[in-house]
């Protein structure tokens, strides 16, 4: 079971024309398929395409990975969710873990061009799974890389670097925003690390979704004690307000069925 990271460019001039950083699409590979949400990583207005980057994990992402150039999707809708608020914040830290690096890329680029000083901390399990290093280097002022196994950059987790980084620099530099995307546990940990420093921390949640237009509530999450729908109220939320324990549990609702269908079809 490899976990390839796949990049797909999809022709959709309408979606490309409207997509902002942080927004996503839902798509179906075939009529029998699931509707899954994926963040729009990039767009090319001249070609009328959007770019998605995903890691093969469950059935749908594997089916996506198996597509060839020229194939058509059964359905795609977007751009969904609120776009990231792009303005001059000052000093910003972006944290990307795994395929979440792809999701922070458009945000990094937009924040950089809005005149922010952008520091990025990227983490991957191992060197081969690290993506978009060159691209992020081009749109950030400082770049830190970690790998779990130490095969590249610093050994350890992004949160280790973040923790050290904040402890070292917070006396000298005022950070006004931390923006993190990655595995749920990573985002939860980022929230824990940044909380004592009292720095506003935004995460983009990857909740399970069906229609992704606010009609089903599958993606509901408790933020600040209130129910929010990730699809229409998010996907970005204040990391310090998110009920992480609930998120983790809700994301595991279909674990058994997911394993079952993967055994059958892969």
């Amino acid at each position: 079971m490899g976990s390839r990271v796949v990049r797909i460019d999809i022709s959709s001039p309408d979606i490309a024309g409207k997509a902002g950083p942080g927004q996503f699409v839902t798509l179906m590979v075939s009529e029998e398929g699931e509707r899954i949400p994926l963040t729009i990583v990039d767009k090319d207005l001249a070609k009328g395409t959007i770019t998605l980057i995903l890691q093969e994990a469950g059935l749908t992402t594997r089916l996506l990975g198996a597509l060839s150039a020229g194939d058509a999707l059964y359905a795609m809708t977007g751009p969904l969710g609120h776009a990231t608020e792009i303005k001059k914040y000052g000093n910003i830290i972006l944290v990307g873990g795994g395929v979440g690096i792809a999701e922070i890329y458009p945000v990094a680029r937009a924040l950089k061009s809005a005149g922010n000083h952008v520091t990025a901390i990227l983490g991957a399990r191992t060197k081969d799974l690290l993506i978009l290093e060159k691209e992020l280097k081009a749109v950030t002022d400082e770049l830190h890389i970690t790998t779990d196994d130490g095969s590249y950059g610093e050994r350890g987790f992004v949160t280790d670097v973040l923790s050290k980084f904040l402890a070292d620099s917070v006396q000298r530099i005022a950070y006004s925003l931390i923006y993190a995307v990655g595995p749920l546990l990573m985002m939860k940990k980022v929230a824990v690390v940044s909380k004592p420093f009292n720095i506003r921390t935004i995460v983009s949640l990857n909740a399970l979704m069906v229609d992704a237009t606010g009609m089903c509530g599958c993606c509901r999450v408790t933020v600040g004690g209130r129910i929010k729908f990730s699809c229409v109220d998010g996907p970005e939320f204040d990391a310090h307000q998110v009920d992480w324990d609930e998120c983790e549990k809700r994301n595991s609702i279909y674990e058994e069925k997911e394993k079952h269908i993967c055994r059958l079809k892969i």
Partner: protein
Amino acid sequence: MKEVPVKSKELVPSKRIENFDEVVLGYAEGEALAEAERCLQCRNPACIAGCPVGIDIKKFIKEITDKDYKKSYFTIREKNDFPSICGRVCPAEYQCRKRCVLTKKGLPFASEEAINIHFLERFAGDYGIENSLEVPVEKDEKLSKFKVAVVGSGPAGLACAGELARRGIKVAIFESLHKVGGVLQYGIPPFRLSRDVLDYEINYLKKLGVEFVPNYIIGKVKALNELFVEGFSAVFLGLGAGVPSFLGVKGENLCNIYSVNEFLTRVNLMSAYKFPEFHTPVNIGSRAIVIGGGNTAMDSARVALRLQKAGGIAPDTTILYRRTEIEMPARRLEIGHAREEGIKFRFLVQPEEFIGDERGFVRKIRCLKCSLGEPDSSGRRRPVPAEGSDFEIPCDLAVIAIGLSANQVLTSVTPELKTDKYSDVVVNAETMETSVKGVFAGGDIVGGEGTVIEAMGMAKKASQAIINYLLKLISQKG
């Protein structure tokens, strides 16, 4: 005159819970004739006033007794675009049948003696489909240069599109989901509305030249005003009421607690009951609890029971309702179907808390017992929970079916579109025109959750106003 009402044939309960096939089979000709014969042909038929769109019920029933089914079909079509759909899903016992002179008084709904107007409507509607009867197209050359955008492909959008296309107007229907039909597609299960009927009506609209644009969310991929920039002269909003309400009690986000929309969408739209052939999963439990008393509660309970059956679990599905059976807003026909299929009911019960296990899955519901107090604004007696009457019900799957409110994807980004405190779109009741010039609305996005027939009625009214609006555009240009 035969005294005994003619029942429609149905699949037997023990068999039908093994599949999602349509339960009510409809009248054969002889049954339709016998039931139509029971109609007293009242001089002042109250049933017509009970119909939200004023179908000439007396006339279409008479035409059935005359065996002029074609005429009967067209009589209904004068007011209702989709007789086969309404004949299946209309809550006739609260509308036309309740006003039937044969109904016994004293109930908030029709008694069994009332003429089965809905079955007769379905008979005439299905006759129309089987014989490909089509209402003549009345193309107006003046109108053919106009394009109208319909946003939302539910009952209101479909009806409006059909009315406009028959007059020669070019219509495009924008739908956010990958399949068209709105609530008829994602909400109402196939055992209550055969998808063949829906497909027929959609294909008919395609034949009329209506263009369907799925996967396209107005308010996201296009702003409302951009539709005008792109050459549409008017817009009809049939956005629907699709935002699920939750109880607001502790533990409501535990795993295996679904909103009614999520549960039905997974099963109806995504075909989760065919998992793993279809890839969208839905969970089921051995103690399924549905909370609510409306049609979506009945639908989701019957879906849950079928999923239990398919999963090799002994069927055990219970509906919890705060009031008693008499106050339930669901169709009496469907309450009956649910009971026949083995759904249990617990009345005068109010959920207070969901309690889960260490993995975060729901395990039980703590409830309070209720009694009925004074009538509230809905006219129904208000449930009054008794303090200290707490008790627990085992539950490993819950569906919350307590109501739906306005879809806000478009309205939330269109401040010029006036909405009320419920986020419903405000319209001129005569023309269905909104606060934005050339933009009309109808269906559940106007006035909240209603019925398919009410949505179609509003759409039909709006379509006439749209035509008048377009004709005015011509005269203004000279």
